[in-house]
């Protein structure tokens, strides 16, 4: 009897393998050596794992292939997201090193969980099958649940982890029900055709019998709801402010950058590539979500008194801006969204790096009033935070401006100028609360008798410097990154 053995193709998941191996090595080495020795080598191992993963992702640039029996797409779209994720992971690990030593938290588990989360997020970007997408989603979500609860003696962290967990599990059930219905409609969960006769969601959406399309449209709605939770879109945003506030600041930055780009990567692949033929069915839903997200995120951010909570609502508003690019559903919309997510990720990691340093040991000082006169105590950090907030507001000469420009330009190209008008109005509201922080930092006197937070270590300061530099550089010389985003094409069968 002859059997077909599937070919073993590891290039598609090589970065994920590297990350998993690195994470396991960190756990085992630390378990064997224990705390008898210093733990200086742990961040080096994590850095090594992330650099190798990033390199393994880069070397398959311009490959257009499906691997592992059509489960993994090897395309530039996935590569772009994977490299961005490796960078976010590196910044998180470095920032985490300073944070963990300052607050005396366990180190090895932190690095391992960050690496596992990055691996899951990378898999999410490359998934060519809905069930792989689900596995990837759960891989990074479960790691993030633990990371949010990492300050496990803090009641706030416990509370935020519980809320994040309950709503996260709730949302994955929606995502999964969507997958089940899509399977019922199409007979497969695969997104792309792998052979001449093989069916796929894409082929079905292009030319399926119209009676069965209803079921697929319902499935699509549930999948949008499930992913909407992960990208923190309104009305699925309830967990965001709580989880962002209670989590350690490095983790918050990582969630805002990584979770968002991974969720959007899946959403963009499903909507703009696979279900593109059904765009008249999903556009009304996504437009509604985008409008709500931009307005609610911006308006609620204005009334926040806690800087982390304010940044959480700002991240909700930013999800709305990226959704504008998703709605456009053209090439510029996809590349613009990728550019937006990459630059926003760098900026938001930088913002939370500053927040983490200024909050001091135990992260007690995150209220807006704690930032009074911060400029006179920590001029460089306050200057960096100013830059990040201006970038988030979309002021020219920062990367945030260019990002908004490309996303809104793509929407106008598709004829959604009124959506862009709403987006610009929302950014105007958003500018107000960023300016509020600046006023507090520059125009109010520091509180008498309160010592400023101790300065951050060289790693944390380095993360702030790197992200500040990229925020300026991509605001002035956006060409190379935009080029890369424009080359980040989806897998095309036979292409």
């Amino acid at each position, binding site marked *: 009897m002859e059997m077909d053995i599937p070919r073993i193709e590891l290039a598609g998941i090589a970065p994920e393998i590297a990350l998993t191996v690195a994470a396991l090595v960190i756990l085992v080495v630390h378990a064997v050596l224990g705390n008898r020795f210093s733990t200086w080598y742990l961040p080096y191992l994590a850095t090594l794992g992330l650099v190798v993963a990033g390199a393994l992702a880069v070397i398959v640039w311009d490959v257009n292939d499906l691997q592992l029996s059509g489960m993994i797409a090897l395309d530039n779209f996935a590569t772009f997201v994977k490299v961005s994720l490796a960078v976010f992971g590196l910044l998180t690990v470095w920032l985490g090193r300073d944070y963990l030593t300052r607050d005396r938290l366990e180190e090895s588990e932190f690095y391992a969980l960050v690496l596992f989360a990055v691996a899951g997020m990378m898999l999410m970007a490359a998934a060519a099958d809905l*069930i792989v997408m*689900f*596995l990837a989603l*759960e891989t990074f979500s*479960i790691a993030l*649940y*633990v990371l949010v*609860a990492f300050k*496990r003696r803090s*009641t*706030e962290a*416990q*509370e*935020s*982890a*519980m*809320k994040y*967990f*309950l709503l996260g*599990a*709730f949302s*994955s*059930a*929606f995502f*999964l*029900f969507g*997958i*089940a*219905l899509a*399977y*019922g409609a199409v*007979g*497969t*969960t695969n997104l792309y055709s792998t052979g001449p006769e093989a069916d796929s969601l894409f082929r079905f959406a292009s030319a399926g019998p119209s009676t069965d399309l209803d079921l697929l449209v319902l499935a699509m709605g549930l999948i949008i709801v499930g992913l909407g939770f992960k990208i923190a879109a309104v009305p699925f945003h309830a967990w965001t*402010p*709580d989880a962002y*506030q*209670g989590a350690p600041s490095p983790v918050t930055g990582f969630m805002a950058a990584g979770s968002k780009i991974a969720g959007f990567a899946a959403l963009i692949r499903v909507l703009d590539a696979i279900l593109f033929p059904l765009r008249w069915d999903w556009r009304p839903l996504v437009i509604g979500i985008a409008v709500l997200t931009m307005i609610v995120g911006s308006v*609620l951010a204005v*009334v*926040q008194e806690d800087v982390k*909570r304010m940044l959480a609502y700002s991240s909700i508003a930013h999800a709305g801006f990226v959704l504008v690019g998703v709605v456009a559903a053209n090439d510029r919309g996809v590349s613009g969204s990728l550019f937006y997510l990459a630059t926003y990720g760098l900026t938001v990691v930088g913002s939370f790096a500053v927040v983490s340093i200024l909050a001091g040991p135990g992260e007690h000082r995150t209220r807006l009033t704690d930032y009074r006169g911060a400029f006179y105590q920590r001029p460089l950090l306050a200057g960096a935070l100013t830059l990040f907030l201006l970038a988030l507001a979309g002021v020219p000469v920062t990367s945030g401006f260019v990002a908004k420009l490309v996303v809104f330009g793509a929407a106008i190209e598709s004829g959604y100028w009124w959506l862009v008008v709403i987006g610009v109005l929302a950014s105007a509201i958003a500018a107000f609360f960023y300016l509020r922080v600046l006023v507090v930092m520059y125009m109010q006197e520091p509180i008498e008798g309160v010592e400023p937070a101790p300065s951050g270590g060289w790693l944390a300061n380095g993360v702030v410097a790197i992200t500040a530099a990229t925020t300026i550089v991509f605001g002035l010389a956006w060409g190379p990154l935009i080029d890369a985003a424009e080359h980040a094409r989806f897998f095309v069968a036979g292409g």
Partner: protein
Amino acid sequence: MRVAPEYYLSLAGLMFVIGVVGALIRRNAIVIFMFVELMLNAVNLAFVTFARMWGHVDGQVLVFFVLVVAAAEVVVGLAIILLISRNRGSSDVDDVNLLRW
């Protein structure tokens, strides 16, 4: 005896809706989590029914993925809930209200 797949699918839909409603109105973290598990089992029933309809085993295999992931989620979720109830002697989500907008 032959039963039309519509019955199974209606049951799956009903279970899913009960799960959604229960998760939204109950206040105990453990009970909410049980309703989420009910939603996942509705998904499993739908997968198996569709697999039967299509006449291949793909859907039945997917059920195993769901089961394994759900088990992993339980481990982390119950650990978090345990942490909270140890600290405050309650796992009621209304008692957990330090974070408010």
